[in-house]
């Protein structure tokens, strides 16, 4: 005799597909992402890569790289903020971040001194944005003080604001806020932590 319970159990198990987990090869996900991209519905793509400073989250819009995040920033909450600040149409699509990933890899291998990937600065506004734009002018292996950065960004008295712009840089590494230090030579804050800032400056000084 079959019971209702047995029928219900059978329902729950009867359509699970093969015994392996769902979409393990990612074909369905890949197809969804490809279609979304073609139809202009992929607002933010992201991937994570390994680096000597730990896993990095890379996120891009159609305009360019929009966010680089260290794992201490908590990648999941970074993605949630991107969902509310930009768009929740977010899918993991490493292919769209190939170029940025490769350039970062080359940078960590000491083979690249400047990044050429397009960037999207929509997460920074006003003076902060001016500070970020200036960061690219600080050459590899050199440092500049927060005071000098504030001046270069057009507001010499806004030293604290300049420091804050650096410590909230949405694109660390690519926009080299690690090259900005205090006037007394101490390192100052860094999204990736003080050790990371120290390691980057040491690496660049050696190269």
């Amino acid at each position, binding site marked *: *005799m*079959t*019971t*209702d319970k*047995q*029928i*219900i159990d*059978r*329902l*729950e*198990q*009867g*359509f*699970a*597909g*093969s*015994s*392996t*987990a*769902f*979409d393990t090869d990612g*074909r*369905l*996900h890949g*197809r*969804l992402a*490809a*279609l*979304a991209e*073609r*139809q202009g*519905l992929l607002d*933010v793509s*992201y991937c994570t890569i390994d680096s000597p400073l730990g896993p990095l989250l890379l996120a891009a819009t159609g305009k360019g790289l929009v966010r680089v995040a260290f794992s201490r920033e908590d990648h999941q909450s970074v*993605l*949630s903020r*991107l*969902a*509310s600040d930009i*768009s*929740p*149409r*977010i*899918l*993991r699509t490493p292919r769209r971040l190939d170029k940025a990933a490769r350039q970062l890899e080359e940078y960590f291998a000491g083979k690249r001194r400047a990044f050429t990937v397009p960037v999207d600065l929509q997460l920074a506004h006003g003076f902060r944005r001016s500070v970020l734009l200036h960061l690219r002018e600080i050459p590899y292996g050199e440092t500049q003080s927060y005071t000098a950065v504030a001046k270069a960004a057009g507001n010499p008295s806004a030293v604290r604001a300049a420091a804050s712009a650096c410590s909230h840089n949405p694109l660390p590494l690519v926009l080299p806020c690690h090259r900005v230090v205090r006037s007394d030579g101490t390192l100052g804050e860094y999204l990736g932590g003080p050790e990371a800032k120290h390691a980057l400056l040491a690496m660049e000084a050696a190269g």
Partner: protein
Amino acid sequence: MTAPRQRAAQPFEELVAEHGALVMRVCRALVGPVDAADAWSETFFSALQAYPRLPAGSNIRGWLVTIAHRKAIDQLRGAARRPEPARELPELAVAEPASADDDDELRAALDALPLKQRGAVIYRYLAELSYAEVGELLGSNATAARRSAADGIASLRKRLSKGTS
């Protein structure tokens, strides 16, 4: 004080990860193993389109199953009148391989049920929606949905015990 209208802010990737497998089970039960991949893709594509307008706090699973329900009806009405996205779907390199393990006997028994009962059984027991949600999906109410699900299970039981006794 008026707060800005809250919109869904969970990254869509998390929806696919959390609900992808369940939506696939529902699609397999609704349209069978051959068309399930297309139904799944159309469901998530439509969901992605509408997602930014979904109010915060919505029941995501219920919403996705509702879309799958509509896509399944479209598919069952005939491949000739497929909605737009279907034609845009890139071909999967290999046909969906997982069909071998599907419970064919159960599928046949489900297909033989009247539409309301079939829907009620699938949405209640496979998609784990509440009777109120199932009722809304089927254009009735919680009481009717509960009755349809019970009737559906009863006739599945009758049909399936025949072969095993």
